[in-house]
């Protein structure tokens, strides 16, 4: 997956990964892709739910031994 930036939220619990994602995406340009690394299991469902509310484009969620990698494209 192509990405413009990576945000490390490993070790953080709800609501921090979502809030940090929001803060990070605000610094990016429309169409850019943000990769978010997290290990809070809630993040798997929370990221697509947040995208639904905020209007950002949810691309993918990858799971690799306890580590979640989420991909979000900034809305135009």
């Amino acid at each position, binding site marked *: 997956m192509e990405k413009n930036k990576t945000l490390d939220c490993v070790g953080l619990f709800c609501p921090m990964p*979502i809030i940090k994602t929001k803060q990070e995406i605000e610094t990016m340009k429309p169409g850019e892709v943000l990769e978010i690394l997290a290990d809070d299991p809630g993040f798997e469902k929370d990221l697509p739910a947040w995208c639904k509310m905020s209007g950002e484009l949810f691309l993918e969620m990858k799971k690799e031994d306890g580590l979640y990698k989420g991909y979000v494209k900034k809305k135009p």
Partner: protein
Amino acid sequence: MKDKMTIILFSGEMDKAIAAFTLATTAASSDMDVSIFFTFWGLNILKKKKFIITKTQMLMQKMFNTMSTSSLPISKMNYFGLGPWMMKKLMKKSNMASLEDLMKLAKQLNVKYIACTTSCGVLGLTKENLTDDVNEFAGAATYLAEAKESKVNLFI
């Protein structure tokens, strides 16, 4: 127009306040306007750290304000303050955001604080006794007007 969310924060316990602020900061990060209406024990969360008993307060108000301060208890297993102390330690160890962190974030995200004037009156609290983060002092009608326009309304 943005979606809205309101919370009535009635409880003055740390765990319940954390739940409220977790939701408030998440909603504010999800493109929603958020207002928290602090009433009764919820006002303790807004009391200044060094809460000064004012001369104008009645004896019973002074008693209430001495015994219920911004050092919040937890709703279960408080054990005279040992519970909150342990909970804070555990939260720090597991890297969970503290109530203070969440409240700082809430302000950065423009969460609106409304303090209930009736509760302030009963407890003899004035603007000076509460944090400067309070945006408005108002009553039930103000809350209801906001709640009517909001999609999510919670009582905690």
